[in-house]
């Protein structure tokens, strides 16, 4: 399997605190990998480092087998797309226009959208179920609709690696499922997706592998069933959980420890 994204010993220190502490992980082509852990574990910070938005204090990130710091920013934006947890939309653009911004990495400053670009935009809008929102003002969307639109923007840029920060946190049940299927399909043979999730049931059902993070460190990694063991969850989240289901696993918090 081709490794698309790899971090080795990545550390990020702010105010004398290691928010991310010697994290080594990898994302291969065809994989949907979940990043789980309690609030403040450093998941989003790690994602920013992996996206090349921040520079780590130690360690390195390799995108497509090259040091991410050495990849020109324009080229990086064609290889990797990053979806923020709750990205702002500052002007009342239409949803279609916001999604079309995803094509920017492929266009020069004066180039207009080609038929091929429009196809990618339409495809992304269809995949994220944004068709009925297409001509709506993006600033009037609900939290969930906005997340879907921003995900569509990322999909439209046709990246090899997709990093999504809690893309289903604000979604209703139907759109949670839809988005997980979308990410699953995205991670086809050529591509990979690393997604931060809080819903452990969906994480264990859809992801190939999981990384469990706590206090800036990866404390467990591997197949979902192994990572989300009673023992691990007790240690990291400090809760007792009820688990069950073979084909469709579920994990429900029961009580605090």
């Amino acid at each position: 399997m081709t490794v698309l994204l790899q971090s080795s010993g990545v550390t990020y220190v702010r105010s004398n605190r290691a928010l991310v502490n010697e994290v080594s992980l990898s994302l291969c082509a065809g994989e949907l990998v979940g990043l789980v852990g309690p609030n403040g574990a450093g998941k989003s910070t790690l994602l920013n480092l992996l996206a090349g938005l921040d520079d780590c204090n130690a360690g390195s990130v390799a995108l497509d087998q090259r040091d991410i710091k050495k990849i020109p920013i324009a080229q990086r934006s064609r290889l990797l797309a990053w979806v923020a947890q709750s990205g702002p939309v500052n002007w009342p653009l239409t949803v279609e226009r916001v999604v079309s911004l995803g094509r920017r990495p492929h266009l020069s400053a004066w180039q207009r959208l080609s038929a091929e670009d429009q196809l990618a935009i339409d495809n992304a809008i269809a995949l994220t179920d944004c068709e009925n929102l297409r001509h709506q003002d993006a600033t009037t969307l609900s939290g969930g609709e906005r997340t879907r639109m921003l995900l569509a923007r990322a999909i439209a840029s046709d990246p090899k690696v997709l990093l999504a920060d809690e893309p289903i946190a604000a979604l209703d049940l139907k759109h949670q499922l839809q988005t997980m299927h979308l990410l699953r399909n995205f991670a086809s043979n050529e591509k990979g997706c690393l997604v931060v999730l809080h819903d452990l049931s969906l994480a264990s059902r859809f992801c190939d592998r999981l990384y469990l993070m706590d206090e800036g460190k990866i404390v467990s990694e591997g197949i979902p069933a192994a990572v989300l063991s009673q023992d691990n969850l007790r240690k990291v989240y400090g809760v007792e959980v009820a688990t069950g289901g073979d084909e469709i696993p579920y994990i429900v918090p029961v009580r605090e420890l």
Partner: protein
Amino acid sequence: MDNTGIYTVSQKQLYLVLSIATVILFIASVAIGRDALPVVTAVKDLLSGTDSVYAVILSQIRLPRALIALFAGATLGLCGAAMQGLLRNPLASPGLVGSASGAALFAVTVLYFGNSLISPYVLPIAGMTGALLATVLVYVLAGRDASITTLILAGVAINALATAGMSLLLNLAPSPFAVRELVLWTLGDITDRSMRDFWLMIPTTLIGWLMLAGVGGQLDALTLGERTAQSMGINPGQLRWRVFIAVSLAVGAAVATVGMIGFIGLVIPHLLRPFVSHEPGRLLPVSALGGACMLLAADIGVRLIPTDTPLRVGVLTAIVGAPFFLHLIVRSRREYL
């Protein structure tokens, strides 16, 4: 805002209307004055080298005035749109970068010491120097990796410093006449300008414009926030400085030539935004045309409005612009509260 898609004007129509308006206002600006100028005759005389009074009025009075209004107005509109796009705020204006007040301070200093009498080049060159110095000072104050907030604070500090300097000069002015001259200059005015003033203003103006050409797509991406824009291949730090320096150069040149003319950079982008579906990139060229129209129109206005003392063009734009600014604040309060 619910006005997305209400204005179904095509881009071609919008450019056509604004271009035609600019051309008409430009011709009107050449034709209208204390004495009406037969434009066609004047142009013919000028081109054929006939030494008629019309040709002289055209080449030495009307043409520089109209050209300066055209370019300074376009600068103010364009830079307003660029600042609003960069700061993602409809209330941002070119004055925020501090170069306008820097230019004004240096120009007023030159007037105060009477240096403008030495050579006609002194005043505009001093203004330009002031604008550049203010820009450099903002750069030094804010640092290379400045955030938007730091940049604005640095701009505000420079503005305060320049205002303090101007107040000092006014305070120490030897005679009421000197005070009057200084104050009137800051009000903004395009009368009695020559082609020399125009040519002096052009280089930095064009450098500023060229630096802003091509940032449209980056400003569009910035709509989704700096981080997302960064992930889309944009270097936000570089973009900030590019826009800041471009605006400083162009606005500095405009202020050095015509004095302080407010509100064009605020009002024009805001009025035109709905016609370009609120896209910050497409707003840039449109606002340049709109700004040119507004300053040409205001400069014609001051000639047509009969007052005992000649009305200054900066006063007219402020009188029209300030109520509009209030309207904006009231409306944004309704929207965001």
